[in-house]
């Protein structure tokens, strides 16, 4: 197998707590996690609230610094990057966040929102940027005229389509998604997941997809890591995890998903 695109090595994160007078022991949100994702694959990270999955994702995004361990993207340790190298990494790794209501600046039009990454990285002339935005809006199934709207004028599904467009506008190699469909109705969720899969294929992306929803994880992932209280309890090929879980906690999770026997045969 080729060199993994994202490699997480023995990463831990401790959040300090308490004030000056009552020092509490730190809260270990992520503890000694090692994971890797190969090119064009999707790693699904599944876990309940407080399992540390979102913290882990934010560390790969270089938004939170790990207390211990290293994170490598395309072979480079992201916290050692400076200047131009850092900027190049920022271009390679893009996020899609959970909440469609808060992931857009409410005072900017969709055009300004989509143009921002291009402006920050100084890509293209104004005309080329417009061209690119129009093309991408069509690609994610939206009418390009939507670019003049403000975020609150869009539905949740439309917003997540814009979020996907924004994530790929710089032509990244890695996209990290944090529960991108958990705020959506199932009918809309299905469309957005389909779009996500198509875009991933078209753009040759390597992705990490974090969710608490096991069914969604099964649908999008090639490999799965199950997290619980900051630790990865089990990881492996998606089919193997779902059909032959080894860890007790994985079994408990799967058993807890409400779906009766007659749905399994459907």
């Amino acid at each position, binding site marked *: 197998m080729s060199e993994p695109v994202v490699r997480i090595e023995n990463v831990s994160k401790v959040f300090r707590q308490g004030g000056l007078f009552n020092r509490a022991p730190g809260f270990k949100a992520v503890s000694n996690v090692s994971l890797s994702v190969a090119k064009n694959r999707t790693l699904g990270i599944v876990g309940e609230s407080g399992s540390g999955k979102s913290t882990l994702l934010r560390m790969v995004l270089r938004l939170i610094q790990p207390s211990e361990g290293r994170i490598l993207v395309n072979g480079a340790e992201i916290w050692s990057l400076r200047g131009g190298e850092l900027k190049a990494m920022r271009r390679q790794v893009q996020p899609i966040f959970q909440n469609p209501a808060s992931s857009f600046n409410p005072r900017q039009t969709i055009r300004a929102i989509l143009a921002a990454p291009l402006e920050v990285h100084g890509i293209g002339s104004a005309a080329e940027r417009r061209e690119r935005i129009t093309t991408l809006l069509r690609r994610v199934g939206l009418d390009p005229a939507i670019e003049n709207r403000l975020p609150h004028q869009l539905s949740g599904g439309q917003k997540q389509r814009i979020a996907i467009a924004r994530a790929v506008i710089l032509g990244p190699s890695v996209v990290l998604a944090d529960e991108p469909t958990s705020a959506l109705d199932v009918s809309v969720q299905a469309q957005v997941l389909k779009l996500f899969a198509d875009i991933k294929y078209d753009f040759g992306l390597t992705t990490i997809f974090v969710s608490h929803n096991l*069914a969604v994880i099964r*649908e999008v992932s090639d490999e799965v890591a199950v997290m619980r209280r900051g630790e990865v309890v089990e990881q492996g090929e998606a089919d193997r995890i779902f059909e032959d879980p080894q860890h007790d906690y994985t079994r408990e999770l799967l058993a807890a998903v409400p779906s009766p026997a007659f749905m399994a045969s459907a």
Partner: protein
Amino acid sequence: MREYRPHAQGAARPALAIRELTVDFQRRSGLLRTVDKVSLDVWPKEIVGVIGESGSGKTMTALSAMRLLPHGAKIGGAIALGGRDLVNIGESEMRALRGDRIALIPQDAMQSLNPTMRVGRQVGEPYEFHRKQSYGAIWSKVVELLRAVKIADPETRVRDYPHQFSGGMQQRAMIAMGLALDPELIIADEPTTALDVTVQARILKLLRDIRDERGSAILFITHELGIVAELCDWVYVMKDGKVVEDGPVKRIFEAPKADYTRMLLEATPSIHRRKGAKR
């Protein structure tokens, strides 16, 4: 042809009967209809699911039965609790029924508990409001209730404040509150949406046990097909304020009649299904 409804057999009348219910809100742009001629029945000892996506009117339907709709809502149609009209009675008569004959388990347990009052006192309020009893008697009943909803160490937990409870325990406390006076009908409005799956599984089992042991009918509002399939006897599918179809849960899943139900089933991802989107 009418479908066979086991709970309707031998029962004199439904625990809850809703006929042609409409709920309207006055908006500047005109009347906004959120519930449009909905009819549904919940028979004694039956768990009825109402499933729908956001904006389908499922929560408004549920709150109508409690007469706890937000200000400015207008109800039309008929609602009967065990044959008793709920639409035209006065507020004080309705108040006498709430918490006694009909109870609500809300979506967000944390927000639904008064943060400055001990859990035990809150759980005991239905007794306080509807039965004249001494505080000592209420207190011991509350402990029993908390034990019944499987809260460990209820004797000390009654003195806790809500924030000292975990999310699952808060929801159990809300359920205990609903159970207190053995109501004919419990309305559960997405009571597990905010919870993790493992906690959700335990809460669902608890609700099933309650129906089996105490015989309360349950109207369960949800947007998740999986929950309906696992918990309910009978299902109503709602869309845009209307019921698009209803029937026994197995039939709805295996042979849906409405296109919308079929689409919902298609769209719901499953842990048992191999992913279809892969190329």
